């Protein structure tokens, strides 16, 4: 049947099973909006800013197994979407972002609301398409969804000039897609997998390091099986949290710049490291040379060959889908009954338990002032560790990552790679829409929340009863922390003066607002917010927290994993293996 380009857009989205389209109308996409008006296969969510549309679509995807979809107009609509697209790109999130474009004949003439979206988005997309002919539209959508969701996932932009949305053509949605230049790997090389199994069997101090690839790749069950089968210690990166249950005894905490003492030291002193869907980035291992100064054999499993040997040379690279590779690895280990030497492993656990003992996440409780860590711990308690937690960027993000023990993958949603302030609230909205029955908490700060606070309005319109926990310390906390440590406490522009009354803001948008200043009120207020009476309401809680609390442990830029700044009760503690285990340097 013959349809207009705009009608084809709606049909394609319906064919792809899109449930929600996050967007904002404008001149170049009016035809598409008209076609949306005339259909009922998917719902449109009208955000208040295009950046939020992309974040919401992103979190919708992160909290489900679907591709997130956003629609923006040309020019400013498109450029507003870029931060969202870059956020998704850095964290490998499958998105399809449709942008309107000025009519084909006007492209290049500096037309009203014209911007070269293909050029602007090129460095931050997995791929992008400018559709010049309506006859290519349906096939382009098929390709876009395929590219976004397969291999290493990522955002794909489809830029559609207005005349293409108006032109008509015969429509049929392609059943399948084949792109000769794009064939993402699935199975890992069997020989490499055997080598990895043998390394694990020969290991004295094995360690599993799991990143966001395991979450995106749906490999949490395989990670858990491997860890439990061999009884090896396991760490998750910021993006990998939930891949292994945060309460599991084999879990030694998050690693990296704000990782636990035991997770970081185990990373430094292990002798065989299995990296699963993780990329040895600067916030995890800091300086490669320092990290490798204690010799270790490294197996690196990743679907993206370019992630391998980018920062760290590895001994056994395995390119493939992490789930498929781990499944095969587990099968080989079982088949050949391979496991690490039990005595060596027991010794390694003894060492790790010693590192665990001082508890690097211990903080000094207070009855005077609210400790931010206490808010997160109480959130965990009140939600029984089951909530989907989104965050913004800064100290509150790190505390949420450290103190909320995520039980399962896709429960923790944050901008890890790009570090985008303003992500949390629209993300919570997207996650709530994908999981209507889940409890969704947005952990934020008074700085970040104001970067997309207008989305309180969208939350009202679409009844997304998320709970916003703002850890309000009247500072851009992480900036302040760095200024305290590295800039002689010169708090340059990190104080948030003239803060609004957040309770009134929440109320003005039609929500419920609480201000909490007394530590004793933290738990009752959270219980009320998540309780049955407010189940259907968005609750904004303005926690007035300790202004000078810092995130520990911390690894300063340029230092190694065994050169952490430790919390007060651990200052001066050695960051080496303990006395009876001093032979770690020369075992490999």
């Amino acid at each position, binding site marked *: 049947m013959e349809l207009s380009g705009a009608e084809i857009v709606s049909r394609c989205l319906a064919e792809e099973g899109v449930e929600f389209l996050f967007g904002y109308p404008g001149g170049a996409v009016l035809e598409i909006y008209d076609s949306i008006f005339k259909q009922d296969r998917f719902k449109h969510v009208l955000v208040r800013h295009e950046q939020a549309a992309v974040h919401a679509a992103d979190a919708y995807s992160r909290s489900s197994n679907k591709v997130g979809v956003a629609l923006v107009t040309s020019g400013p609509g498109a450029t507003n979407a870029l931060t969202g697209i870059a956020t998704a790109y850095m964290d490998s999130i499958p998105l399809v972002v449709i942008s309107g474009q000025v009519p084909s004949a006007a492209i290049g003439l500096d037309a009203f609301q014209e911007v070269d979206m293909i050029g602007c988005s090129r460095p931050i997309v997995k*791929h992008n398409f*400018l559709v010049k002919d309506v006859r290519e539209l349906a096939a382009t959508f098929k390709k876009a969804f395929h590219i976004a969701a397969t291999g290493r996932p990522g955002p794909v932009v489809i830029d559609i000039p207005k005349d293409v949305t108006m032109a008509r053509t015969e429509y049929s949605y392609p059943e399948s897609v084949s792109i000769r230049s794009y064939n993402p790997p699935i199975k890992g090389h069997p020989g490499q997998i055997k080598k990895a199994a043998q390394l694990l069997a020969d290991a004295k101090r094995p360690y599993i390091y799991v990143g966001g690839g395991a979450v995106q790749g749906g490999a949490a069950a395989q990670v858990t099986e491997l860890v439990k089968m061999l009884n090896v210690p396991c760490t998750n990166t910021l993006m990998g949290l939930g891949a292994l249950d945060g309460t599991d005894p084999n879990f030694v905490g998050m690693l990296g710049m704000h990782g636990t003492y035991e997770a970081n030291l185990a990373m430094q002193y292990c002798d065989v490291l299995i990296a699963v869907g993780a990329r040895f980035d600067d916030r995890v291992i800091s300086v490669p040379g320092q990290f490798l100064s204690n010799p270790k054999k490294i197996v690196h499993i990743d679907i993206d*060959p*370019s992630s391998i*040997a*980018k920062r760290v040379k590895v001994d056994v690279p395995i390119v493939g889908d992490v789930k498929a590779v781990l499944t095969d690895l587990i099968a080989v280990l079982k088949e050949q009954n391979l496991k690490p030497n039990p005595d060596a492993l027991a010794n390694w656990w003894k060492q790790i338990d010693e590192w665990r003992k001082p508890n690097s996440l211990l903080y000094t409780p207070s009855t005077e002032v609210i400790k931010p860590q206490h808010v997160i711990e109480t959130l965990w308690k009140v939600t029984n560790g089951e909530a989907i937690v989104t965050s913004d960027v800064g100290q509150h993000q790190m505390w949420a990552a450290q103190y909320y023990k995520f039980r399962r993958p896709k429960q923790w949603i944050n901008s890890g790679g790009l570090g985008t302030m303003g992500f949390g609230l629209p993300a919570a909205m997207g996650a709530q829409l994908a999981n209507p029955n889940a409890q969704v908490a947005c952990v934020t700060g008074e700085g970040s929340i104001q970067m997309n606070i207008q989305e309180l309005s969208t939350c009202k319109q679409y009844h997304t009863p998320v709970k916003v926990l703002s850890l309000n310390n009247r500072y851009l906390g992480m900036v302040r922390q760095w200024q305290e440590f590295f800039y002689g406490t010169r708090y340059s522009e990190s104080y948030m003066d003239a803060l609004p009354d957040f309770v009134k803001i929440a109320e003005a948008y039609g929500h419920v607002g609480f201000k909490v200043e007394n530590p004793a009120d933290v738990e009752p207020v959270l219980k009320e917010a998540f309780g049955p009476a407010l189940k259907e309401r968005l609750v904004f809680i303005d926690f007035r927290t300790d202004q000078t609390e810092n995130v520990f442990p911390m690894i300063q830029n340029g230092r190694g994993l065994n050169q952490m700044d430790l919390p007060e009760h651990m200052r001066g503690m050695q960051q080496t293996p303990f006395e009876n285990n001093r032979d770690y340097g020369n075992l490999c």
Partner: protein
Amino acid sequence: MRHILSVLIENEAGALSRVTGLFSARGYNIDSLTVQTTEDPTLSRMTIVTHGSDDVIEQITKQLNKLIEVVKVIDLNEADHIERELMLIKVRAAGKDREELKRTADIFRGRIIDVTEKTYTIELTGTGEKLDAFIKALDATAILETVRTGASGIGRGERILKI
């Protein structure tokens, strides 16, 4: 170290800018880049001359392969290969210099492809070094204009880059 990469890429609008954008975004070097459609009009072939450590070249190859439109990448340096570059050079050729310039062009197997009373335009093909040598052999003040294509490369013998 200098490397020559051969890239087969879909002949689509914007494909070239993805490649050059990748090089600039990641801080890689492009010494020269040539591109033209192949005998199969749906494909283009690029020759990229770049330099960097082995690690950098490995990353460049991987990142190129990651581009959706890139079909195949090979590093010609991994085996015997041939490379050629074309130069057009316009020289002042008046009076007594005229004969000498013609002789020099002949020595380098160059061809004079345009003549005026005062100038020659010479076409010269070879490796980059040969073209450099030719320029050196000329009196610098005689050179009016040069244009070079950058290297194109192909594997020797049975080594073939094809889908």
